[in-house]
C-alpha cells in the first residue's frame, strides 16, 4: 500500500504550489486545485481503508501495516525520530474521517469564502492543515506525532488568524497557539520522560503490551506516583490542550473568530480530537502501566463535559454554543477512554469513544457548516438576529435538524448509537459516572434544541434584506453529511476498531438506551416549550438565578483567571521586573564599573598636571624623602 504516501504528499504539494504561486492564480482556480487534489486524497484514503480492512485478520486482529518508515533525525543509539506511515484500525478510521470532512469543507468553502481577500492563502492553509493532521494520525512514533502536533497547531493559528486585520481574530489565534503550546510543553516533557525509560519512541513497541520495556522505570517514583504515570499524565496534558479539556479549554471558544468552515474542520471534527486520538493510540500503555492516569482522564473528561454543557445552555453566539458543545462531546470521548478496559466486553469504552469520534466528526461538521450557511444568510453570529429562518433556508434547516437529533442521541441517527455505548460504559465503570454522563446528555439535547428553535423558529427578527439559501457548493456538503449522519450509526464499528484489535460485537444495552432516549426526549420537549414560541419562562429563570446565569454566561470566569495570570503575574510581576532588573541592576552595575574607573582616573589625573615646576617640587622632596629613608 505504498500509495498511501501520496495521501501525505499531495496536500503538502498543494500547500507549496498555492503558497508560492497563490497570488499569480485566479482565486477560483486556486480553490479548484486545492479541492481536486483533496478529492484524489479522499479516494486514496477510502481505497486504503478498503484494502486495509480486506487483509485477513491474523490471530483475530488487523495487523498494523507500515508502508513507509525512514530515519529522520538520530539522537542516541536508541532514540531516533522516524517519519513513516502506520496503518492500523484507528489511523485508517481517522484517515477516512479527516479526508471526508476536509473535502466537504474544501467544497463548501468554494461558496462560503467566495470573494474573500486571500482566497488562495486560505486554500493553502487548508492544505497545510490537512497534511499535518494526516501526518499526525499515521505517525509511527510519538515524536513524529509531536512534530505534526506542532504543525497542526500552527495551521490552526494561521487559520484562526485568517482575518488578520481583525484584532479579535489576531488575539484569538495568539491565545489558541500559546495555550496549546503550554500544553505541548507537558507533552514534550512527557515524551522525554517516557522515552528515557523505555528507550524508544516507536508506537509499535510501546503499545505491544510487553511489560519488559518499562522495567527501566521500575521503582522510580516521584511524589508517590511512578515515573511512567507522570510521563503519561504529562502526555495527556498535551492531549488535553489540543482537545480543549478543562482548564485548558479557553482557546477553543475564541477560536471561533476564524472562518466558519475552518471551525468545522479544525475546531470541531479533526484537530480537537487529536487529544482523544493520542490517548487511544497509547491506550495499552495507559491501561497497563498508568491506570491511575486513566482515572484522571475520566474525571477530567467528565468535569469538562459538565462544565461545557452548562455554559453552552446560556451562550447567545451560535458558534460559541457549538464550540462548547464540541468541548462537551470531546469530554464524552475522554470519559469513555478513561473508563474503558482492555479485553472483551470491558473494552466497550474504547470502542465507543472511537465510534463517537467518528460520528461526532460528521454531525458536528454538519452543524458548523450549517451555522456557516446561517451566518452567510444573516451576517451575524447572534441568536437574537435570527429566528424564523426555516422558511428561508429549507435545506440548511433540515440538515441542521438532523444533526441536532443526532447529537441529542435520538435513534436512528448516528449519535444515538455512539453516545449510548459511552453511557453504557460509564454505567459499567460506576453508577455515579453513568448518572452524571446521562445528565450531561440531557443538557446536550436541551441546549442543542434551544439553539435550533432560536435560529429556525421563534420570532422573526428584522433583516436588512431577505435571507436566502446558500449556493450549491455549500448545500451539497450539508446534504452529504446529513446522509452520513443518518446512516453512520448502523456501521458495525466494533468489527473495525476495538481496544485489543479483536472483533467487538456491539450489543445495545436496552435499559441504558431507553432511559437515555427518554431523558433526551424530555429535554427536547422542555426546549420546545421554552423556545419554540416566545416564552417568558427562560428570562424569568435567568433573572431568578441571575448570579448563576451571569457566571455561566461569562464561562465561570476562567478566562479572567487566565488573563490575571498572564497579564498581572507573568507580564507585570515577572517580565517587567526582569527587564527592569536587566537595565537598572545588571547593566547599571556594568555602567557603574565604567563610571567608577572614569572617576578614579579623573581624580588621579591631577598628578599629571603638566606643570614642570610641580614635577621639580615632587622630584626634590621625593629625593629627600628617599635619602632620609635610606640613611636612617
Amino acid at each position, binding site marked *: 500500500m505504498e500509495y498511501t504516501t501520496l495521501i501525505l504528499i499531495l496536500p503538502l504539494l498543494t500547500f507549496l504550489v498555492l503558497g508560492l504561486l497563490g497570488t499569480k492564480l485566479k482565486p477560483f482556480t486556486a480553490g479548484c486545485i486545492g479541492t481536486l487534489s483533496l478529492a484524489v486524497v479522499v479516494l486514496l484514503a477510502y481505497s486504503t481503508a478498503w484494502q486495509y480492512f480486506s487483509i485477513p485478520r491474523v490471530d483475530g486482529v488487523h495487523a498494523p501495516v507500515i508502508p513507509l518508515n525512514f530515519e529522520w533525525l538520530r539522537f542516541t543509539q536508541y532514540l531516533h525520530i522516524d517519519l513513516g506511515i502506520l496503518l492500523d484500525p484507528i489511523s485508517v478510521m481517522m484517515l477516512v474521517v479527516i479526508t471526508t470532512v476536509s473535502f466537504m469543507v474544501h467544497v463548501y468553502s468554494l461558496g462560503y469564502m467566495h470573494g474573500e481577500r486571500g482566497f488562495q492563502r486560505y486554500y493553502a492553509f487548508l492544505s497545510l492543515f490537512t497534511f499535518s493532521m494526516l501526518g499526525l494520525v499515521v505517525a509511527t512514533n510519538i515524536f513524529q506525532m509531536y*512534530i505534526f502536533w506542532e504543525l497542526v497547531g500552527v495551521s490552526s493559528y494561521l487559520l484562526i488568524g485568517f482575518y*488578520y486585520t481583525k484584532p479579535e481574530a489576531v488575539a484569538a489565534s495568539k491565545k489558541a497557539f500559546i495555550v496549546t503550546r503550554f500544553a505541548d510543553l507537558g507533552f514534550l516533557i512527557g515524551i522525554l520522560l517516557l522515552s528515557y525509560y523505555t528507550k524508544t519512541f516507536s508506537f509499535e513497541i510501546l503499545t505491544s503490551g510487553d511489560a519488559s520495556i518499562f522495567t527501566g522505570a521500575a521503582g522510580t517514583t516521584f511524589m508517590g506516583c511512578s515515573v511512567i504515570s507522570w510521563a503519561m499524565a504529562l502526555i495527556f496534558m498535551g492531549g488535553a490542550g489540543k482537545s480543549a479539556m478543562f482548564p485548558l479549554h479557553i482557546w477553543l471558544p475564541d477560536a471561533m473568530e476564524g472562518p466558519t468552515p475552518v471551525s468545522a474542520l479544525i475546531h470541531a471534527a479533526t484537530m480537537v480530537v487529536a487529544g482523544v486520538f493520542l490517548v487511544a493510540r497509547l491506550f495499552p500503555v495507559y491501561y497497563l502501566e498508568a491506570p491511575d492516569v486513566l482515572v484522571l482522564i475520566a474525571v477530567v473528561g467528565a468535569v469538562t463535559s459538565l462544565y461545557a454543557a452548562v455554559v453552552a445552555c446560556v451562550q447567545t453566539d451560535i458558534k460559541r454554543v457549538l464550540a462548547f458543545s464540541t468541548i462537551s462531546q470531546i469530554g464524552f470521548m475522554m470519559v469513555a477512554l478513561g473508563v474503558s478496559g482492555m479485553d472483551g466486553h470491558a473494552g466497550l469504552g474504547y470502542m465507543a469513544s472511537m465510534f463517537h469520534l467518528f460520528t461526532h466528526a460528521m454531525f458536528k461538521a454538519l452543524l458548523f457548516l450549517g451555522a456557516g450557511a446561517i451566518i452567510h444568510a444573516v451576517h451575524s453570529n447572534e441568536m437574537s438576529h435570527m429566528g424564523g429562518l426555516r422558511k428561508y433556508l429549507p435545506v440548511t434547516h433540515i440538515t441542521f435538524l438532523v444533526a441536532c437529533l443526532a447529537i441529542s442521541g435520538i435513534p436512528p441517527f448516528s449519535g444515538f448509537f455512539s453516545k449510548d455505548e459511552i453511557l453504557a460504559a460509564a454505567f459499567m465503570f460506576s453508577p455515579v459516572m453513568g448518572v452524571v454522563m446521562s445528565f450531561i446528555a440531557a443538557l446536550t439535547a436541551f441546549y442543542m434544541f434551544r439553539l435550533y428553535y432560536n435560529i429556525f423558529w421563534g420570532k422573526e427578527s428584522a433583516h436588512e434584506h431577505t435571507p436566502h439559501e446558500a449556493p450549491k457548493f455549500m448545500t451539497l456538503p450539508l446534504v452529504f453529511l446529513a446522509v452520513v449522519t443518518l446512516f453512520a450509526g448502523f456501521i458495525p464499528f466494533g468489527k473495525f476498531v476495538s481496544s485489543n484489535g479483536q472483533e467487538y460485537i456491539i450489543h445495545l444495552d436496552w435499559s441504558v438506551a431507553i432511559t437515555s432516549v427518554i431523558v433526551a426526549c424530555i429535554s427536547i420537549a422542555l426546549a420546545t416549550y421554552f423556545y419554540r414560541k416566545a416564552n417568558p419562562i427562560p428570562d424569568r429563570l435567568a433573572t431568578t438565578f441571575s448570579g448563576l446565569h451571569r457566571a455561566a454566561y461569562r464561562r465561570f470566569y476562567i478566562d479572567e483567571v487566565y488573563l490575571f495570570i498572564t497579564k498581572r503575574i507573568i*507580564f507585570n510581576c515577572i517580565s517587567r521586573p526582569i527587564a527592569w532588573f536587566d537595565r537598572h541592576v545588571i547593566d547599571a552595575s*556594568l555602567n557603574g564599573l565604567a563610571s567608577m574607573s572614569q572617576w578614579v582616573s579623573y581624580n588621579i589625573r591631577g598628578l599629571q598636571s603638566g606643570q614642570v615646576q610641580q614635577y621639580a617640587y615632587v622630584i626634590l622632596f621625593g629625593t629627600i624623602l628617599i635619602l632620609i629613608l635610606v640613611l636612617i
Partner: protein
Amino acid sequence: MNFLSLFVLIPILSMCGLFFSKNLQQIRVAVATGASLLLVLAVGLVFAYLGERGAGNTAEMLFTADTMWYAPLNIHYSVGVDGISVAMLLLSAIIVFTGTFASWKMEFLQKEYFLWFYLLSIGVFGFFISIDLFTMFMFYEVALIPMYLLIGVWGSGKKEYAAMKLTLMLMGGSAFLLVGILGIYFNSAGTGMPSMNLLEIAHSHAMPLALQRWFFPLVFIGFGVLGALFPFHTWSPDGHASAPTAVSMLHAGVLMKLGGYGCFRVAIYLMPEAAKELSWIFIILTGISVVYGAYSAIVQTDLKYINAYSSVSHCGLVLFAILMLNQTAMTGAVMQMLSHGLMTALFFALIGMIYGRTHTRDIREMGGLMRIMPFLGVCYVIAGLASLGLPGLSGFVAEMTVFVGAFQNTDTFHRVFTIIACTSIVITAVYILRVVGKLLYGKVVNDHHLALTDAVWYERFSTIVLILAITGIGLAPLWLSDMISGSLQSLISMLH
C-alpha cells in the same frame, strides 16, 4: 598551501579589490565576488569533508596544515577542520553572503564599511579554521575590533555608547581569556616545550586538575561574554540595537557563535575534568540566561531589543547544551548555533528592511504591515516560527536534540534545569506572537506607512537564501547531525 587558508585569503583579496575600486559599481562587484566565492568554498568544503569521511578517513581533524610561525615560543599557524568547524564555516559564509546583499544600498562611506566588514569576516573565518590557540586568539581579536568602528560610524541611535560598551565588555572577556590561554599554554606539556596546538594539548592530558579548576572558569567566562552568558550579556541588546543591519546579522549570527564554539573547543575540550566538576555553576547561569532572556523579550517594544533578548535566550541554550557534556546535547548545541545564526540573521535583515522603510523600530508605532509589504511580512512570520521551534524549520531539530540530550543526564539537578529550559519554548511563543500580532496584523497604525513598498530584489535575494538554509536544515537534519556528532567522539571519550 592548504585550501582552508583560502577562507582567510579571499576576504583579504576582496579587501585589496575594494581598496582599488573607484566607484560604487566596482565596490559592489568586489564584495559580491568575494562573498560568493566564500559561499562556494564553504559549500565545497562541506562536500569535501563529507566525501573524505565517507571514504573512511577517521582522523580527528581533516585538511590539516602546519607552518612554524615563531619558533622560540612554539607558535604555529596551523589549520584543520572537523564537522563542527565545517558547520560553523558554512554558517559564516551564508551570513557574510546575505549580509553583503543586505547592505547593498549602504548610504555613505561604502568602501570603508565593506573594508571593515571583510576584516571582521577574516577574523571569523580564521577563528574557525585555526587549531592553534595563539592564531585562534589572534583571529578572535581581529573579529572584535572592527565591530567598534562598524557600530560607532555606521550605526544608529546611541551608537558611540553602544560601540564603546560592546568593545569594552568583549575586551574585558578576552582579558580573562588571555590569562586562561596562557595558563593552558604553560601547563600544556609538563616539563617539555609548551605547545599551543589544540590537539597536542588535548591528548597530552598534562594539566593537573588543581590548575584546570582555575583556568576553566576564566576561559569559559571569557568566551561566555561573547556567547551572551548571564550576567555578561548586556552589551548584546544595546550593541545590536545600534548596529547597522548587516553588522547585526554578522554579529548575532556568527560572532556570538565564536563564544559557543570557543567554550566548546577550548574550555571543555582542553579541560574536561574541570568541566565535569564545575559545569554546575555555569548550568545555573545559562539556565537563567535561557529563561531570563525570554522573559525580558516579552516586554520590550523595540524590535531589535526583542531580538537581542531572544538571542540571549537562544545562545544561552547553546552554552547550556554544551555543559550537559554528552554527545546528543552537544550535537544539539552546534545545531542550535547554526539554526540560531541563520534565523537571527534573517530577523535582523528583516528588521533592517522594515526600519529602512518605516524609520521606526517601536512596535507600538507600527501595525498591519502584512497588507502593505506581504513579502517581508511572510518572511517575518517564517523567521518567527523558526524561532519558536516549528517542525520543518531549523529551530525545532536543534532544540529537540538539545532537550533530548540534556534529559539523558539522570540526576535531579540536570533534570530540573532541563525542564526550566524547556519552558522557554512557551515564553518564546508569547513574545514572537506578540510581535507578529502587533507589527504585521491588525490595523495600519500610521497612514504614512500605506505608501511604503515591498522588498526589492537584493532584499528578496538575501532573505530567500536564509529561508532556504533554515528550511533545508529543518527538513533534512540527519546529515548535519551525523557530521557533528561524529566529530564529538574523541571529546566524549575524554569525558568518560
